[in-house]
Each structure stands twice: as C-alpha cells, then as structure tokens.
C-alpha cells in the first residue's frame, strides 16, 4: 500500500483535499479492483478520492504518473503477465530504460523505433491516423518519442519541451491537411467520400448537396471528417505525452515527476496571470460557480430560517381547543430586497480580472432586480442595461467592452475622477440598504485619489467592500493607493482566485 500512500500524498500536495476516511476507502477499493484494468481502476479509485469535477485533471495527471506508468513494474510484482496492449512497443519502452544511460535522446536509440528513418516514421504515422488504429497510434507515439524528443536523463523537467520537440517534428497540421486532401480526391474520383478507418464506405452520406465543393466532399462531410481526424490526432498527442512521462518516471521516479507536473487547481489559478489553458479551465469552472452563487443568493433571499414544527405540542394544542383542524403552515419571512451597486475597473491592467468579475455581476444580476452595475477606466458608465436580457455572461462582457463609455481623457485608470463622477451622478440613489462593491487594483496613475468620495458613499450605504485582484504584498506599492480607499471600506479583500471570490461571496450573502 506504499504506492497508495505516496499517491494520496501527491494529491494532497496538488491541493486536492483527501481525508483520512477517503484514504482508507481507497485502500479498501484497491483490494477489490483489478489493477490491470486501468480505466476502471482510475475511475473507481478516483471515485473514492476526488469529489469535485474541477480536481479531476490534477487527479488524472497524478494517477498516470503513479499507476499507469508503473504498471509494468506493478504487474511484474503481482506476478502478472506483461501489459496486453501494443506488444511490439514493449521492447522499445524497455530499450529506453537501458538507452537513457547512454543518452536516449540522440535519436539513434536501440529499440524498434530508433532505427526507423524519418520517412518510415512519417508513413507509419499517416497510416495510423488514416486507419484509426489504437495499437498503431501507440506504437507511433513510442517511436516518435525515441526519435525526436531528445530526452536527456537526469534533468528535472516535466516534459513540456520534449513534447513540443516531438510534435514539431511530426508536423501534425500538415498530416491533417494531407489526410483531408486525400479524402477529397478519393471522394471526387469515386463519387463518395472515403472510409475514415474501418467505417463503411458511405457512412458520411453520399448526397451531393448544393454546398459541396466541387472536389467531392460537402461542407458537412468535410467538417465531420476533419473532426474525426482531429480526435485521432488528439489521442496520438495524449499517447506521446504519456510516453514521455512514462520515460520520465523511469528516469526520475514518480514522486519527483509528479512534483514537476503539479499545477494550481482551477480555483487557485491567479486570474491576473493565467495561461491561456488555465484561463479556459477557469472559465469552465466559473460558469458553475456563477450558477451556484446565483442559486445561493436566490435562496438566501427567499428563505429566512423557519422553526421546525413541534408536532406533539400542536396535537396537545388541538386537543385542548377541542380538535380544531391542524393545518401547519410555514411562514417565510420576506427580507427587504438588498440592493447592490457594483463598480468595476475594466482598464487594461485588470482586464482579465474584469472579465472574471463581470461574470460574477451577471450571476448576481440574474437573481436581484436591484443590481446596478458601473464600469470605469478614467470615465465611468452605467451598464446595468447591458446585462438585461443577456442570458450568456460572455455576451454581456462583450457588449460592455464595446459599448460602455468609459474613456474620459486617455484611457488610463483614474479612480479619483471616476469615483467623483459616480458620486455626483448616482450618489443620490445610494440608500442605507445598498451594498457597494468596488472592484479594482486601485492603481491610480498618480492622479488625485478623491478618497473623500468613498467616505461619503459609505455614509449613505449599508456596506462598502473593495475587491483587489493584486496580491496583498503589492498593495500600496507604486501607484497603488488601495489603503487610502480602504480606510473608508468595511473590508478590502484580496480576490485573485475563484476560491477567494467564492469565499467572499459566501460571507457577503
């Protein structure tokens, strides 16, 4: 069970909360699960360890490193036979184990793939993708890594560069285009599209409709075929990545590799510095969060707490009053509608944060009619109307970025001016039931702060909160004057991750 303990340790290090109960459940699960069925093992073990879909990717990576990649060793331990798939490649994998001592990266390699010329490899690659043959794809992945990755033993890397080098040499975009060209040609000559893999020849339909290009494939056929090849290419890429990791595990051990591969969980990604891929994951996580927040806000609004029904006392009461019909009724208190004013900086320095918070505003907006939204750079504009009727937050964000009138002088943040205008134009509408949420980094480009505006706002409002997307350690450095504003707020909160945002909203509602 050492393997499991190490694995659980890695999950925790990656930020996934695994309780002791869950660890024990997983240990018990392992007793029942067939180790050689990796898919089932991955899911069943995951079912006892990972309880949130946003953690699944991190789990998969760790699983791959700890289980899939060591299956040769584990199976040998268990006295089992060698892995069932891709037998032609096994010799290659072990060859790398030997090869790495002498620099497996030179491309000459010792195993089956190493001696292959680039032309032979390219032909094999083409055939594997054209035929959609999984075993062949696996073999290509192994050959390609041996030939092109240039792996050097002992380097403390996660393999991104090896992956990049391998893929660059394979020119998969070019291969895709050749596959498509061949499909078109075949279709033009036969009058029907070619079989992608082992599918029946006419599966994509034969009707030549009006949108079909002259060379044979209709637009629809073209699209479907392209998506099919793309999915095969993605499978190949995943195989290549797995192969590289397998070799890295052999070289450095699971623990060290898993450590290099660790990435922040989606809820811990810094919004301001997210990579494109992280941002995509973040956006996926944002939608359910926004939905969750909306539901939570709505619930809080509709229900106060109600006391449980004391049945016995009700009965006694009925008895004493001669059995007057008992019809328990729960009364929900109707709290006064809270009003929220959101004032968000959408200047370049916080652009990604602004997108993120606008999604939040959208969620709040869909639950409260009394939400008013304002955006500013050096000028300020009300955008409440732009959220109305937009059922997709992305639409609303797009409209705000194109339609809001937020530039006054030069399009660099001027909090002082924006706030002064806010107070002047909308100050009268702030009431003791209004919560004002300010979103921004308070980087004021050395303009006048006009912090008195916030003092005034706070006197009118119920609460004033400031959410700052910068790390706390940057606050008040350079042109940041967040503390100057902060003295007039109920709280200033660091808010750079989904987790922080969620925590804040949790306390707010």
């Amino acid at each position, binding site marked *: 069970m050492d393997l499991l303990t190490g694995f659980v340790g890695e999950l925790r290090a990656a930020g996934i909360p695994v309780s002791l109960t*869950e660890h024990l*459940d997983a240990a018990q699960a392992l007793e*029942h699960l067939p180790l050689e*069925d990796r898919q089932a093992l991955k899911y069943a073990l995951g*079912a006892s360890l990972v309880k949130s879909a946003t953690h699944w990717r991190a789990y998969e990576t760790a699983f791959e490193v700890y289980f899939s990649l060591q299956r040769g060793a584990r199976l040998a331990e268990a006295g089992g036979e060698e892995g069932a798939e891709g037998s032609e490649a096994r010799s290659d994998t072990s060859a790398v184990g030997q090869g790495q001592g002498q620099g497996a990266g030179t491309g000459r390699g010792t195993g089956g793939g190493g001696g292959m010329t680039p032309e032979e490899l390219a032909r094999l690659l083409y055939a594997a993708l054209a035929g959609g043959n999984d075993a062949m794809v696996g073999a290509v992945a192994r050959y390609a890594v041996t030939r092109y990755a240039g792996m050097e033993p002992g380097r403390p890397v996660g393999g991104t560069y090896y992956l990049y080098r391998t893929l660059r040499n394979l020119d998969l975009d070019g291969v895709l285009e050749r596959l498509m060209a061949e499909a078109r040609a075949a279709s033009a000559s036969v009058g029907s599209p070619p079989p992608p893999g082992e599918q029946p020849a006419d599966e994509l339909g034969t009707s030549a409709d009006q949108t079909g290009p002259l060379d044979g494939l*209709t637009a629809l056929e073209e699209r479907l075929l392209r998506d099919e090849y793309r999915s095969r290419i993605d499978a190949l890429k995943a195989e290549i990545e797995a192969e590289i990791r397998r070799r890295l595990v052999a070289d450095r051990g699971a623990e060290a590799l898993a450590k290099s591969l660790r990435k922040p969980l989606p809820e811990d990604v810094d919004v301001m510095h997210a990579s494109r891929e992280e941002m995509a994951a973040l956006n996926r996580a944002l939608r359910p969060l926004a*939905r969750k927040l909306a539901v939570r806000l709505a619930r809080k609004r509709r229900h106060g707490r109600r006391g449980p*029904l004391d049945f016995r006392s009700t009965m006694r009461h009925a008895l004493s009053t001669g*059995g007057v019909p008992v019809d328990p009724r729960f009364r929900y208190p109707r709290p006064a509608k809270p009003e929220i004013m959101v004032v968000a900086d959408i200047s370049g320095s916080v652009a990604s944060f602004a997108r993120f918070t606008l999604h939040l505003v959208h969620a709040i907006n869909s639950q409260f009619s009394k939400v008013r939204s304002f955006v500013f750079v050096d000028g300020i504009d009300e955008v409440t109307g732009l959220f109305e009727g937009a059922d997709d937050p992305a639409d609303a964000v797009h409209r705000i970025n194109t339609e809001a009138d937020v530039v006054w002088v030069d399009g660099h943040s001027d909090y002082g001016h924006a706030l002064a205008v806010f107070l002047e134009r909308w100050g009268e509408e702030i009431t003791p039931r209004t919560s004002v949420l300010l979103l921004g980094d308070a980087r004021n480009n050395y303009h006048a702060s006009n912090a008195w505006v916030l003092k005034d706002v706070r006197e009118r409002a119920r609460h004033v909160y400031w959410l700052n997307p910068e790390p706390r350690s940057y606050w008040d450095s350079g042109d940041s004057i967040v503390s100057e504003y902060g003295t007039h707020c109920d709280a200033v909160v660091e808010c750079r991750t989904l987790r922080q945002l969620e925590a804040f909203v949790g306390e707010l509602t």
Partner: protein
Amino acid sequence: MSTAQDTPGAHGGDHRFESIAAIRQSLADVDYLADDGIAGVVYLADRLDKPVLVEGPAGTGKTELAKSVARLTGARLVRLQCYEGLDESKALYEWNYKKQLLRIQADAGQSWDKLEEDIFAEDFLLTRPLLEAIRSPEPVVLLVDEVDRVELETEALLLEVLSEYQVSIPELGTVRATTIPMVFLTSNNTRELSEALKRRCLFLHLDYPDVERERAIVEARVPGISAQLADQVARIVRSIRSLDLKKHPSVSETLDWARTLVVLGIETVDATVAVGTLNILLKYRSDIEKAAKELAGLDAPS
C-alpha cells in the same frame, strides 16, 4: 470489508456483481451503455456498500443509471425526488395527523397517555422514500434525485440515514435495513454539497459520452435506426459539442433528434436536413445559427 460488516445489515461477502465487465454487459442488456469508469464505480459501490454521488451536466444519464441498475438487479426502485423545501416529513416519515385527530375526537373520553400510545403506532405512520427503502424486505435501489436542491438541514438528515442505514422513530424504535440498498444520489451541481456527504459517497462525474458510446446509445434507444444513421448522428453531435455554444446538446437531445430523423424517414443526414432539424438539438437561436454556419456553411432557416 471489515467496516462494511460492522454496519448493520451488511450482506458481507454476498455481492451483486461478479466483475466490472459483467456490470457493463448487464447494463448493456438493459440498454444502458456504460464505459469502464461508470461500471467500475458501480462495482466498487457494491463491494464497499457505499452510496454513489453522480454529478454532471443535464441529460447525461445520471437518473437513468440508477434506474438501469435497479432493473438489472431486479430490485425495486425507490425514488426520492428532491426539491427546495423538502423536509424530513416528506423524505423520511410523517405522522398522519388527520387520522390521529379523528381518533382523538372519537375517543375524546380517553386519557392523553392512553391516547398517545394509540395514535403513535404503525397505523398512523406515513412512510416516505428514505424509510421505505430502509424497511423494504425485498432488495431496493434508492435514488435520491437532484440532491443539490435540498437545504443543508435535509442534506444532514440524508447523511445520517446513509451512514447508519437505520432510522430511529422515537415512538416506535429503531428501524434497520436488512440489506444495505444500493444508493444513487444525483446532482446538477447548482450548490456545493457538504464535505461530509461527499466524503461518505463515491463520486462519479458523468460527462457527455464519446462518439462510440453515443452511437451505441442511439442504436440501443432508437428503434429502427440504421447503424449508418446512428453513426452519423453521433458524429454530428460530437462536432456540435466541439463548438463554443451556450448550451451543448445532451444525450436526451441526441436521442430526440435521432428519433425525429427516423420518423422523417431520413437515411442519410445532409447539410439541409441537419440544419433544418438543428432546433431539436439546440435551444438557443444564436447556437443554432452558429452550428449551421460552422457545420454546413449554411444559414439557419428562420
């Protein structure tokens, strides 16, 4: 299995399924197409006597999984449909106070103590799904559907029942499960469930199926469809799901679409047919327009 045997009513050693592959096969026999992940989790749930929390987008087969497991094990399905405001009296049990009241009025001369004993008896008990599942002498599968809709207090109640598999009714004593039922909870993730509940459950995230599995689902669930059409349907849906849309088609929508194509007598989907019927797969106007353009280079009919 030690912990499971400590639990009251565990059927130690006695498992419902032989292997993961067997589950996959039996599920397929009742027209539910699982992958190794789904089958693996069901297998483990049976071995460890743990509830399964199934989460995922709408229409991906969460509810159907529980129903199918019931069908294949020959168990009765007991379903607790959750909604906002669901409480103990609707989830667990309730005293039939109208009936109690009648009795009180009828026996007006009795002392309260005597009366109390009479009216808090089996006859006056209204059994709700959780109690029903626990008391059932025959095997049941308990489905707690859309658990994310209940309030936290009700969730705590659920947790209690699912940890002990027993219910104590102050007036009647404790009711224990004779066999631990298989339990499925489904969630659309509109609310974060409590850590305690999640810890108690095995977690299964159901996503859209891959193209092979979706094709198989279509073939299993749409009578009279040709293999070729089923394949085409699955591929087109995959392409549509790869687009950036407000709402992706669910499996139920795929099935609705496939059924429509069959009714229309369509053998092969070309661009015109696809675009003309996109409104069955997609709900938003803007999504329909985008898909029509991306897929077939056509404008959606207005």
